[in-house]
């Protein structure tokens, strides 16, 4: 009697796993579909290792911001200031490099100067995040308002510090974080290690369901594809490396740790979470600070990629990040969503941008098409989830 019951639970669990993953894999299929269509339309240019390497690098910044934004949205908040913070942090790094002469340092001093600039940019981001978090958690002002204010403040500060103009050139060692590559050999080793690690982790489970095999298989496929891409051009771009690290951390934190549970609970029902002993204020504060830090780091990466800090950089980055999160299936109400979805969402948007540029669609039309696709994606997702919840 008993064993049949557990057998049944396991069976329903497995079935549940399949239906759940169909939902998760759907966005994967959407991404693959977009890639196939774009490859055909561009006669394969899209699918070349060179283009795909560039694509991943373009996606990185939005991807990193989207990971942070996922956590913010999961606790039922929003951060509109990330774009401006990216600009402010970039400008601060630029001012240090150019106006304070760090870019002139040579030898290993140059690397110290660059690391210092990057840390300073991140620090500026943390400062903005602390300010947001402090006002939101301690003074209970709506995050929309606070971060809207911060969006304008940070933009203003960026313009002030940069005197309204671009700051350039930056040192080569600093630019490495935006433009550099890991050598193809190192990239191969790293990607293979990581890929096989994920595959093994999927297969090491005590109770293996179909889901685990599917995850292992897809991890294998992604690894293979990544190897082909990065081998075929110049290796793994540094921004992509940073993105991957934060992506992995984000996924693990949300899925596997206490913190992930707490975040979901806070977003689902803050009162119940609080009553259950979850330190909601501390966690919210930490999350706003973290996204600030990520935005600061992205500021450094962006100015390094452009070899110059623009006070007008990062416009609408917050909306791209929110779009990636939403396309990835995270609910704006809070409590429901995944980091993996947001990463896919970022790739989805990135692939569209890249493909349309390859097809010589002018930027004005790109915007319209992108907007329509965001609306369609979310509408489709809502339709699917409402029909699945109604059954």
């Amino acid at each position, binding site marked *: 009697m008993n064993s049949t019951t557990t057998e049944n*639970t396991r069976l*329903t*669990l497995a079935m*549940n796993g399949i239906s759940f993953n169909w939902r998760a894999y759907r966005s994967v299929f959407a991404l693959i579909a977009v890639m196939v269509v774009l490859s055909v339309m561009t006669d394969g240019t899209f699918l070349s290792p060179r283009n795909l390497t560039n694509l991943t690098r373009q996606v990185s910044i939005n991807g990193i911001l989207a990971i942070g934004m996922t956590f913010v949205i999961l606790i039922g908040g929003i951060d509109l200031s990330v774009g401006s913070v990216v600009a402010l942090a970039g400008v601060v790094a630029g001012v240090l490099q150019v106006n304070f002469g760090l870019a002139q340092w040579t030898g290993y001093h140059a690397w110290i100067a660059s690391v210092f600039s990057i840390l300073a940019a991140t620090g500026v981001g943390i400062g903005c995040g602390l300010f947001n978090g402090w006002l939101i958690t301690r003074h*209970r002002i709506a995050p929309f308002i606070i971060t809207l204010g911060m969006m304008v403040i940070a933009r203003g500060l960026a313009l002030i510090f940069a005197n309204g103009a671009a700051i350039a050139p930056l040192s080569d060692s600093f630019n490495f974080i935006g433009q550099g590559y890991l050598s193809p050999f190192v990239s191969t080793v790293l990607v293979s290690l990581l890929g096989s690690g994920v595959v093994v982790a999927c297969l090491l489970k*005590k109770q293996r369901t179909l889901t685990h095999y599917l995850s292992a298989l897809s991890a294998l496929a992604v690894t293979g594809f990544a190897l082909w891409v990065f081998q075929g051009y110049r290796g793994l771009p540094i921004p992509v490396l940073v993105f991957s690290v934060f992506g992995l951390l984000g996924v693990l*934190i949300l899925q*596997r*740790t*206490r*913190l992930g*549970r*707490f975040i*979901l*609970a806070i977003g*689902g*029902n*803050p*009162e*119940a*979470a*609080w*009553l*259950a*002993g*979850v*330190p*909601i*204020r501390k*966690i919210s504060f930490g999350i706003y600070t973290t996204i600030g830090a990520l935005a600061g780091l992205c500021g450094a990466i962006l100015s390094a990629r452009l070899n110059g800090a623009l006070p007008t950089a990062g416009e609408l980055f917050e909306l791209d990040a929110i779009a990636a999160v939403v396309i990835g299936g995270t609910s704006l109400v809070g*409590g*429901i969503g995944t980091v993996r979805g947001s990463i896919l969402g970022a790739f989805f948007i990135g692939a569209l941008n890249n493909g349309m540029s390859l097809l010589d669609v002018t930027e004005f039309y790109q915007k319209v098409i992108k907007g329509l696709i965001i609306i369609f994606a979310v509408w489709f997702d809502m339709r699917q989830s409402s029909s699945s919840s109604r*059954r």
Partner: protein
Amino acid sequence: MLLSIQGVSKSFSANKALDRVSLDVYSGEVLALLGENGAGKSTLMKILSGVWPTGTYEGEIKIYHSETLRLEHVTLKDTRDAHQAGVAMIHQELSVFPELTVAEHLELDRLPSWIQWDKLFLRTQTFLDSLDFGLRAETLVKDLSVGGKQLVEIARALYRKAQVLIFDEPTSALTDHEVNRLYTVIARLKSEGKGIIYITHRLDEVFGLADRMIVLRDGRNAGEANAYRDGKKVPRAELEPMLISWMVGRSISDIFPPRNQSMGAELMKVKNLSLLSPKGKSLVSDLNFTLRRGEILGLGGLLGAGRSETFEALFGVLNGSGPRGRGYRITGEVWLDGQMRQTETPIAAIAAKMAYVSEDRKGTGLVVNQSIRNNMTLPSMASGILGLSQGNSFISPIRQDRELEEVQVWMKNLRIKAAHVDQSAHELSGGNQQKVVIAKWLMTSPDILFLDEPTRGIDVGAKVEIYQWIQRLASEGIGIVMASSEMPELLGVCHRILVLREGRFSAEFRADQATQEDIMRAASL
């Protein structure tokens, strides 16, 4: 006959919610629909009111047609179709818009795009006068009491010429006065030939109101009884055991299990507990009481007398770093096992081995959009009690196997009916949701358990199970404080009862020596 449901079945994935249920409603009668939570009442009513459209279930629904003058098979694609067919639902949680007037509510689905207010008020007021509910067309609904809002819903149903009115737990939020008025209204609807389906948990109501009773259990017709035999009322003593046995599937000789007899040492002492609201209003003042191991202490009192506030003050809910608390002032001391303890936040309270099953399941008890598993382990996970994670830092990995094991144990212990541990909490019936809340706190193996209305809105069977658990926990040496507005429950479960009035204790009784009248007098005086 106004309505006939024949052999309706509906499944949610593997769960059969309704299994060939049949039910007839005649003109001029009150049909009481009884059943435990999860018995299928709500699903059946959702089908009737068009929430689950025709085609998502099997079986037939026929409704009396005012033109053909006979029962016609109907297709209900949505709630609008149901209105048109003459079926109206008076909801448990009133679905009214606070900022609109009564007149707008009456014409909500047919408001012209350009509103001529004077004509709208005139036409609706004429109708309202004919009902004699004492409603004014131009009143904003937010200015009405709960009972008043309910009258608006009834008026709206009648304005749409509803033939069958479904009342879902209509008295759960009403004052005594409003309840009486509602009964009068129902009696009048009956005399006007409407058919009424009355869903309730309270057997008292059933014997006062119903002409006929139908009981559902596990999605099936479990029994049907007539309130009258040969023109005379059937005595309650005859009907009640029958109804209860149909509802729970077994006869209950005694709803309240015997009280725990073994009491231990003093566990908690509360000294001079007071709570001031941010506006300086005294919510609770100067409470002093003790609790022994194995003791069940009852908190009685009217709504707003300070029962929940007492718990919230003791459990640290109103601390400034919480979502609600800001500017509350709490004074007083809590002594546990002879030591003074600070319980200024729930985190500290849980560390002091307290647990709090709050009154509002959906508002503060559960994260309803999340799984049974996530809900059940949240307090243990937060306090690190059960070793559900490898270490207690934020980024400690969860031990998934261990967690699953614990959740399954408690689902079995409390007999929680669910498809699997990852089922979302909002898909559960009220009784099962309550059990999840209780389980999540018992998992933390508390010394002190606060229960606020632990059996509100759940069925007899689940109630009995919860009473048994309360006695069992007491016998294991846990001290329990239980607040309830149901006096029989306080008298049947507790050892001692403290009655609150306007935030102060007005009396203390030994439960075996007190009567409902004693408590009532102390509560209201």
